[in-house]
């Protein structure tokens, strides 16, 4: 459990790492928190994100789709219980 959380933090915190968030946001046209969370859910989960969890992550993004909120949403998806399902 913790190893995954630690890895998730490393995975999303590395602003110098190879994940180019602005490029992904632009290329995938993730113009709203809903689109961003659905993209992350599809990319990272083997099954669907629970609706309540999805809503909470969208709320977390507070209407912003920028690098900070996108990385934060990515972390929340990875540490969510749904990630464990498959």
């Amino acid at each position: 459990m913790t190893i995954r959380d630690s890895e998730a933090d490393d995975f999303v915190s590395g602003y110098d790492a190879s994940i180019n968030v602005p490029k992904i946001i632009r290329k995938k046209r993730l113009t709203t928190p809903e689109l961003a969370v659905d993209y992350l859910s599809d990319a990272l989960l083997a099954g669907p994100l629970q609706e309540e969890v999805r809503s909470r992550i969208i709320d977390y993004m507070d209407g912003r789709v920028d690098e900070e909120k996108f990385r934060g949403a990515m972390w929340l998806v990875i540490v969510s219980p749904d990630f464990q399902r498959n």
Partner: protein
Amino acid sequence: MAITRRNFLRRSAITAVGLSFASPLLQTSAFGSLRQGRGGSKLNLSNKVIVAVNLFGGNDGMNTVIPLNQYARYYQLRPTIHIPTDRALVLQNAPDYAFNPGMTALHALYGQGKVAVINGVGAPPDAYGLFDHEASQYMFQSSDITGSASATVPSGWIGRYLDHVQEGIVTAGVNLGGGELLLRGIDREALSIGSIDQFQVQPGFDGEARKAAYNDIMAIPAAAGGVAERNRMLRESAIEQSAIVRERTAGYEPSVEYPADNYLGDSLRQCTQLLTADLGVRALAVGYDGYDTHASQEDGRNDTQLGYHSVLMRDVSDAIGAFQADLVGHGIAQDVILLVFSEFGRRPEENNDAGTDHGYGSVGFVVGETVHGGVYGEYPNLNEDRLVLDGNVDVTTDFRSVYSEVLAEFIGTDPVPVLGGTFPALGFL
């Protein structure tokens, strides 16, 4: 890199080793089986506590306890890095031996009869993985000398004992960097944390908002009985426990001043903090690194300053001295025993880099109010014809004898189910 589940999992797999308490993010390593053990008989309801101090890297026993009665041979083997006799701390009532000059605090405790020195401690010559750090750590933590269990699901010798103690508010075993395996049982996991303060969800960027969302998500039930729900409940439990630990330990005040800039001292201070909180902790593991002294072992030494290895021993000694005094100050010293061990010793002769290479027999310590202070076990003979395994210092005391005596005499439980055999007592308890 694309954001994909596969990329994340592959990256995790590459770097997972050693991360259990390294991240500042969520320092809740393993509450895995908390309150979910297979049950079984509760063999021991005592309040006794084992604290294990793991000196990572293979501590040099010969420069930790100097054999004054073999000093000419010792000097011959170590013309550069020997400890001069005028700086060595001769043991009261045991003038054949002296402590490293950095070990003044432990020397004082020895004088008070609270330290058992275990000479020639190590594994049998046919043990799996001698001279190898990882295999030897596995051996000392698990007490398995065959290496066979490492291929399945290994457990630690203290963990197997903890499987049977009364459960408290948190897990009975808490690892503060001394080796998670040591405290891992067959039925129960131990808790591994970097520190008490870090035992909480601590997202870095966008911290408050992310933490609030995290807590909310963890409160949303998933499908009953599924993996996701079990995972959620474990996390929820960890968060709850971390809050209890921080709350219960907040009022702790050390009764003595711990040494400054001393990592082990800080770890042992937190041990006292956890023990005085009465959370049900029955074993703790702490560690100190830097003992793989292949080169420049006494670098920095002059007439007044200690060299590198001696500084390490000073740090350990000062930390234990403060810890012991703090336990006394809090009135719990009778219930705590502290073991100091390392995965192996060093070769008897210094190498060309003024260091020592991986060796065999070493020295261990048992410290506590209930210990019969003294020197136990035969100090290995350093003569060339008495060296073993390609010129190494012999092992005269099976490390499992120390464990066995602690379990039998201090804890009061049968060591055979834990260690898988009987081992002769040394008499330090």
